[in-house]
């Protein structure tokens, strides 16, 4: 029974990380309708920005977190203004945008490695002492609890933003039909720029939290992105609630999947699940 409870807890912990990445990814996808592959590396930028502000400049941890989130948001905003917006203006296909985002991901990853070396670093070291909490016989760390709470806070905030504000209505309008939204006088490029800022800031926050939980390395973004994308597709790509649901579903399937088989098949389980969804429910759990 204790194993079962701990596996549930492990699934929730892994799922909350996937969900957090999927939240930002789906938020951007919802407005732009393209797979922003640079989303993962923006998470890594968040982690490294925190490392720079807190560990190198020695700033207060909370201030460093805020600055790192803003920095990651600005990187996303910059990517949109410098790369994606010019391509959209030229009516480039989603495939061209996807390839451009792949190029951005590779370049940014290399820049991180040049600036900080490719060495793996743990953000929690010498900054905070990890507290352990016992929940129904299972163990969860302070960072993991924060990740879980942050995921639900961000989900609630995004839901409020999308459904209770003018800005949210504009995003949903762009998501339905960008051309018509522009015709009725909404500056869609400005809205998309803001969406990139918010989505990337969420990715940056995910990068910081993953850095506290395990650690950061320049290539961490790719793995986060893959799991985030799988979670998005499972839950319903572009749907923020779907992304969270997909993240937790993926976490449960992966962790219970390796209960009886070897841990080396964890990624294979995730991709098998993705293929199953692509074949039998390509629009995901939430999208009809």
């Amino acid at each position, binding site marked *: 029974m204790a*194993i079962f409870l*701990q596996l549930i807890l*492990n699934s929730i912990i892994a799922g909350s990380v996937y969900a957090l990445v999927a939240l930002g990814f789906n938020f951007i996808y919802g407005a732009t309708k393209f797979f922003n592959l640079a989303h993962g590396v923006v998470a890594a930028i968040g982690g490294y920005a925190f490392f720079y502000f807190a560990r190198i400049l020695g700033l207060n941890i909370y201030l460093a977190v805020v600055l790192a989130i803003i920095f990651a948001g600005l990187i996303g905003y910059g990517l949109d203004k410098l790369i994606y917006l010019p391509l959209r203006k030229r009516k480039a296909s989603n495939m061209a945008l996807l390839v451009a985002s792949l190029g951005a991901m590779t370049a940014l990853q290399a820049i991180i490695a040049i600036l900080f070396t490719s*060495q*793996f670093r743990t953000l929690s070291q010498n900054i905070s002492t990890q507290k352990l909490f016992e929940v129904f016989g299972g163990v969860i760390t302070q960072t993991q609890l924060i990740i879980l709470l942050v995921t639900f806070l961000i989900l609630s905030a995004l839901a409020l933003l999308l459904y209770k504000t003018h800005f949210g209505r504009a995003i949903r309008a762009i998501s339905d039909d960008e051309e018509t939204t522009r015709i009725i006088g909404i500056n869609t490029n400005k809205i998309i720029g803001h969406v990139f800022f918010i989505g990337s800031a969420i990715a940056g926050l995910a990068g910081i939290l993953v850095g506290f939980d395990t650690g950061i*390395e320049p290539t961490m973004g790719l793995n986060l992105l893959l799991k985030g994308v799988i979670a998005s597709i499972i839950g319903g790509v572009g749907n923020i609630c779907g992304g969270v649901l997909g993240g937790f579903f993926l976490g449960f399937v*992966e962790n219970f999947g390796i209960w009886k088989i070897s*841990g*080396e098949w964890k990624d294979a389980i995730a991709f098998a699940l993705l293929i199953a969804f692509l074949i039998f429910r390509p629009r995901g759990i939430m999208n009809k």
Partner: protein
Amino acid sequence: MVVTLITIGYFLLKGSSDFSVEPIKIGVIAPMTGNTAFLGEGIRDAILLAKENLNGTKYKYEVIFEDDQLDSKLTASAVNKLISVDKVDVIITFGSGPGNVVAPIAEQRGVVHFGIASDPNVAKGNYNFIHWTPPSEENKVFVAELQRRGINKLGVFESNQQGAAAVIADLRERLKGTDIEIVTDQLFNVGEKDFRSIITKAKNSGAEIYLLMAFSPELEVLAKQIKEAGVDTPLTSIEGFELTEQVDLFEGEWYVNAADATGDFISKFSAKTGKSPTLGVANSYDIFNLVVATIEKIKGSVKPLSEEIAQEITRVKNFDGALGNLSVNEDGLVISKAAVRMIKDGEPATISSAE
């Protein structure tokens, strides 16, 4: 006219004499950047130290270093560059993964390759050799230490790579007929960072000690997550604890590793670098010296062929190296001993050596 002929003749002769002293090129593939850069730096320092100590050799020796970050994909491009562009005569690699990449290429291209690797497959063929403490030696010491400590139930966390697989396969054989059993063996992929569920699976296995077979950074993340899971079972390793710079994570834990280098080598290395030798350092120093001694022994003044170098290496017996008296056996292995070590005050210390 006469002056022109003399000038041409001079340059032709000069050219031919230069050809006869064409340097022997030794390519070294090691992690110079990344998580295990500290190991590659140690290997580089040891080889440069060995090169500095050369005196009155027939040939000039040139060393070319290539960084592979201990990543087999990078090893493949590094070895192709060393063979095709730099035209090296000998290649030295670090790790079973990189060694397994280079071995078939070296065999096919006829270039002598020395691996610092656990996996005996690295020494397959006529041109491939290993200088490392083989799994059989390490496991002999490891099992004896488990028995001495009265440990009967062993849990294994094993990274999915050749070196770890070779050690665990040999360990399984050695445990047959003993009272010790592997009660759980958790395999994970290189690059994995979430070990929570495999730790949960291993937690109830009743293991009295966990054997961690992983490289950095998986090793540190795994150790951290084991502690976070509230598991207080002791940890041990074969080589692993010296594959990380964060040895303090394993304070007070015993493990098995290659035996200490000679005092003379340790003092020379420390005097040059101001650091203690890390994993593979004494092996790389020995390989360089052994290769040079072998090449110098080959008769003639023209640069020897790779085939001749490889054949001469197979005849090496009782070579006085940094890791003691070394010989190349029929499988192309230069065998050195293992020792039980412990992390004490943040430093590895030998607590007992093999007979």
